[in-house]
Every structure is written in structure tokens, then in C-alpha cells.
């Protein structure tokens, strides 16, 4: 039926060749906004990265690949790149599995499930800046609550954000506590979607709740875990808010990740050309990750 309708419409269009104004009118605001705030800046980023950008008289002098050469030969860039990877690794190892475990066990709880889901979300919906400030306050070496309680256990005192060996863990720790919010909901709804028939069949076969969890539920949600893994990795690679509010990249550049490098190059040093070059390199990295993501999801289908 629809096919017939479609071909009829196509015939009509071919016959008349009229521009239909309504779709144009409806789409124009969005297309303008996307061109202005997404596509134009993307092109402009590539363009600017070839200039020694001068904000008073844009775009300044053309310098060819100088910005890229400078960036790629500078120790700061590779240092930042390394720190970014370490942070991504820390986030993955320390926090990625937590919402999966939380959702798996939440699934076993029937009484108060909605309430638990609600409480799990509270730290996640709090503004990131607020969470960081609470933790910064708790990390205070002199009167912070953490040093006090750890001292009771015979640990510390730690300098937390001022200790080069501890600062990275100190930045990741709040995410261990705060749970990743939406991710729990995703895993939870995926677990709920596992067909009850399979679960009942497994039960009949005599597999207990533990075996069902590890042998049936987990394999059944592996696709959503994979998608989340990539989304999480991308998020961790471009993380800015946490680290900036905690340390602004300090102490001694120990937490200087790529995103803060971009921010500093542009807004502290006013080297917009260099900042664009770094952004462009990040853009290529993103394209690579997206490509892998697409390949993976195609294979999973």
C-alpha cells in the first residue's frame, strides 16, 4: 500500500516540479543552526590550524604545517597525550565495571527497586562542578574529612591533590563513588529485556541464580556493554570539567590532559592556531574511534 502511495507521489512530483515550501520552512532554522555552530566551526578549525592566528586581525599569517610540526615535536603535547591515556585507563579500570555490577544486583532486588534507582541517579545528576568541590573540600589536607577517617585507620595523612603520585587517583575516585547514573539505567533495562523464557529454561535445567547471572544475563547484555565501553572511552579521553575544577592541570602538569592543553593554548596563551591544530589532531582520533565503533556494531549485528 505504501509502495503504491510512494510511487504515486513520485509521479506527481516529477510531473509538477514544485518546491514544497513547508519542509523547507521547517528545516531551515535547524540547518542554519547546524551549519553555523557545527559545520562552519569544523571547517574553520582546519583552516585556522594553518595560520598563526591573530584575533585582532584574523586569520593572521599563513604558516603552513608549522602548527602541526610544533605540536607534534613538543614534549608538552606527548606528555598531555600520555596523561590523557593514563586517565582513560584509570577511568576504565576503576569505574567502568561499577554500573554493570550495580545493575546486575539491582535486578535481584524487587522491593524498593524504583527508590534505589532514584538514589543511584542523585550523584550523577548533580552538577559535576559541585561534586568536584565537595571532594576538594573533603580532600583538604588540614581539616578534610577523608584524612581524618583514614587517620583513624592508621593511613595517611595524604596530600591528595598536591601529591604527584596520588593526584590522578584522587581525581578518578569521585567517579567510583558517584556511579555513572544513566549507565545503570541502560544496563538495567537491557537486563530486564533478557527473555524470561531463556531464564526459566535455565532454571529448569538446574542452574542457580549465580550461574544465570554469569552464564545468561551477562552474555546477553554484552552488546550494550561494548557500546557503553566505546562511549565511555570517548568520554574519558575528552574529559575536562573534573580535572579543570580539581587542579587546572597541575600540580607540575601532572594532570595536564589534552582537553586542558587545548583550553590553555587558546584562552591563556591566545595561540588559537596551535589550539586548532591540537583540536584537529583530536578530531582525527575521534574519527578513528567512530570508525572502529561502526565496524564493531556492524559485526555485532
Amino acid at each position, binding site marked *: 500500500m505504501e509502495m503504491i502511495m510512494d510511487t504515486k507521489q513520485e509521479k506527481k*512530483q516529477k510531473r509538477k516540479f514544485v518546491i514544497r515550501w513547508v519542509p523547507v520552512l521547517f528545516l531551515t532554522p535547524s540547518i542554519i543552526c547546524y551549519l553555523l555552530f557545527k559545520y562552519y566551526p569544523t571547517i574553520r578549525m582546519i583552516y585556522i590550524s594553518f595560520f598563526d592566528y591573530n584575533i585582532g586581525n584574523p586569520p593572521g599569517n599563513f604558516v603552513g604545517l608549522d602548527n602541526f610540526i610544533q605540536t607534534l615535536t613538543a614534549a608538552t603535547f606527548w606528555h598531555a597525550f600520555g596523561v590523557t591515556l593514563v586517565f582513560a585507563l584509570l577511568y576504565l579500570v576503576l569505574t567502568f565495571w561499577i554500573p554493570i555490577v550495580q545493575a546486575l544486583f539491582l535486578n535481584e532486588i524487587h522491593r524498593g527497586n524504583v527508590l534505589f534507582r532514584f538514589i543511584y541517579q542523585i550523584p550523577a545528576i548533580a552538577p559535576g562542578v559541585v561534586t568536584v568541590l565537595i571532594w576538594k573540600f573533603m580532600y583538604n589536607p588540614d581539616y578534610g574529612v577523608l584524612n581524618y577517617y583514614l587517620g583513624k585507620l592508621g593511613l595517611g595523612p595524604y596530600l591528595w591533590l598536591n601529591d604527584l603520585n596520588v593526584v590522578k587517583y584522587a581525581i578518578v575516585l569521585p567517579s567510583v563513588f558517584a556511579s555513572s547514573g544513566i549507565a545503570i539505567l541502560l544496563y538495567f533495562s537491557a537486563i530486564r529485556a533478557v527473555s524470561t523464557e531463556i531464564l526459566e529454561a535455565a532454571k529448569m535445567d538446574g542452574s542457580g541464580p549465580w550461574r544465570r547471572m554469569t552464564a545468561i544475563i551477562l552474555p546477553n547484555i554484552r552488546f550494550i556493554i561494548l557500546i557503553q565501553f566505546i562511549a565511555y572511552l570517548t568520554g574519558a579521553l575528552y574529559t575536562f570539567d573534573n580535572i579543570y575544577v580539581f587542579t587546572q592541570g597541575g600540580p607540575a602538569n601532572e594532570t595536564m590532559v589534552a582537553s586542558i592543553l587545548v583550553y590553555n593554548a587558546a584562552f591563556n596563551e591566545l595561540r588559537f592556531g596551535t589550539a586548532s591544530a591540537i583540536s584537529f589532531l583530536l578530531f582525527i582520533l575521534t574519527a578513528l574511534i567512530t570508525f572502529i565503533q561502526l565496524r564493531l556494531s556492524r559485526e555485532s549485528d
Partner: protein
Amino acid sequence: MSKHHIKEKGQHTMKFIAYLITLFFILAALFPLLWMISSSMKNELSITANPPKWLPSIPQTIQVTLDYTGQGINDADFYEKDAMKAIWFPWKMNSRDLIGAVVIEGVKDGQLLYRAKTAGYSFRYANKFIVPSSLFNADGLDNKLPDIKKQKLSSFKWYGDAAISNEKAISSSDSEIVQHFQEFYQSTEFVKGKPQSLEVSRSFWSIFDSYRTVILMGQAQSSNGPSYLHYFYNSAFVTLASILLQLVIGSLAAYAISFTIRSKKLQLWLTLFFLATLAVPDIVLLVPLYLTMTQLHLVNSLWGVILPHTAWGIVIFLFKGFFDQLPRELMQAAEVDGASDLRKFIQIVLPMSIPIFTVVTVMVFLPVWNEFLWPLVISTGQDNWTITVALNSLQSTTPSNIVMAIGVLSMIPLLIVFATCQKYIEKGASFTGVKG
């Protein structure tokens, strides 16, 4: 079947462990929040106390009666100045005491002359400005009187003409705070009235002084920038404007793609045009977008924060996903009737799409209210700071209890939205699963 269920091995341990783990994670998640709430109820002194205390201690109110018998002057101004000295000077000297409020009553020949009061939040907010040092200067405070009146830092009520009798026994409690005040009145000449009685009482409501500072206090010094509430207004404006723009622009575009365009190929290309932008993280576009905004002269304005939000692929993705599932029969019927696209949109699609509009509203509200990086870059002037940018900048200059109070207040809108729309957020989360 159910018998089998009950008997099943491992069922009880599983339940037990599930509750245990869930409770552990929930306590871990709530611990920082509870500490924030507790800290917001302390004052500048008790917040840095070691060992830390979970329950904030309750400050005390000091009530002082000053006797002016034998004083010839009968001018309200004179007494107001005297009362201000009796409040601000000794308090400044003893600013490490946990004082919730100071009340001064002036009496003369057994009759009440005035009652003056200063609450702890006013004192702590303005003392650096009103009494800059403890080397007191009576003329200095006289000069600050207009500021005290203008900002309502201390209240002063004049009863001199009404003749209310006030007979009070000469008394004085022996708490430490009272002794400090007593010493001041006796050892200096600033206050003309003689202290007749000094009493203390607990002032429970003073534990909310941080919140009262945030909500009630304006600017103590004109150079101090806008009041704290101003940042909340900015955030609210940015969030509401972003939601409205995204709802209108996004729904129209999604409607056009899924209802008015017949060519499948064009549909696909348009969708790709909008959704491809999702792959580019914000940090990559930060610098060029900023430079674009300088070209548009939108740097340091709230619209500079708002407008880029109109290009969020996820909004069109959500709308289009919903519209594609709507039944087509009604639309075809309306087409036969010759209804225009605008009428179809308003009269048929909108009433059926309330759930998706709610989902989008909530899904936009949370990230925009919490957004930090973009406002940080684009709102360079203090007047245009949103609450997150303000918090980041205030953290080093503002006492922690005020920062914590602002933090708690900034969470309230999120909690309200979340508590009322939990269902929709969970729905939206499963829609946006791919994005995470």
C-alpha cells in the same frame, strides 16, 4: 513451579548479597552529598574544625540591655549609632565565638528606647567591610551607617516616643561569650550606654545562615560583583531558553523529515547531516566555535551560551525516532481533508507527542544546567556567569560553607525535575543508549 522457586539453592544468599552490595554503593554515593549538606549548615569557623563533626553545632544569640539613664540626648540617630557600636565592635573582637545573633535593647529610666538586631549571616557577610580591623574607630562606623541601613545588615527599631516600660533585673549569665562582651563594654569608651544585663540563648535557625547569605545578601562591596542569586537567574534563563529553542527548532525539523519528505534518500541524507555532528566531541569544536562567536559578537552574553545548544543532534534523533513510530492513518485522513502541514503538525502530531516533548525537555535540562566548559569560555564577564562557572571561580575566594550552600541550592531544580520525571528520564536513557 513456585515451590521449586522457593527451594532454589543460592536464592537467599543471592538476595542477601544483592542488598548488601546495593546498600554499600548507595551509602558510598550519598556520603559526599550528606557531607555537603552538613557542611553548608556550619559557619566559617566550625567548617574547618578538626576532628570534623557531622552535626553542626547551634550558635547562640546574645541579648544585651544597655542603660542610658542620665543621658540627656533624645535623638534616635544618636542611639542607633551607639547600638551599632555595641553590636559590631565586640562581635568583631570575638569573631571566633559561635554567635548566631546579637540583640541590643536600650532603656532609659525603665523605659524601652530601641531594639537593634544583627543576624550572624549579615555580620559574617559584611564585617570585613563594616569593621575592617579591630583597631576600632567610632567615626569610621558612623560613616558606614548608610551602608548598614541600605543593605539591611542590622535592624533598628525606635520606641523612644512610645514609652514602653521595660524593667529588668541586673543580671548576666556567665557563659564565655557573655564575658567577652562584658569585657569589651567595660574596658572601652565606645558605647555610651551601661550594660545592664547580658543573656544568651540558642538560636537554632542560625544553622541556615549560609543559605540566608546566598539568598538574602546583595553586594557588600560594589566591586564584589553580582549577588549570588544573579548566577542562578543566569542559569535558569540559559536552561529555559535552550529548552524552548530546542523543542521548537528540533521538533519542526524532525517533523519535516519524517512526514513531509517522501524521498527515502533525501530523508537519509538529512538525518545523516544532523546526526553526524554527534560524533564530534565538544572539546574539538571549542576553539573554532569560540572564534565563530566572536565573529557573531556573541562573546560574553547569555545568548552566546544558549545558541550553540540549538545544534544538538540528539534532539532531532529523539524527535525523529518518535515521529517515525506514530500511526500514519490520521495524517493521511487529514491530507485527504486538505489540512495544511502546519495544521497537521499542531492539531495531530503535537497532542500525540507530549511524552517525547517531556523526554527532550528533561534530557536537555540536566546537561545544560550542569554545563561548565562552554559557559566558562564564552561568559567572560562576571555578570554572565552561570552557576557552575560562578562556583568554580568562587571556590578560592568564598568560605566553603557558602560554596556548599550554593552547591546544595543548585541541585534542587535538578532533584525536582528528576523526581517528577524519573519515568521519562529512564525512557530517554534507553532511547539515547547509543550515545551514553
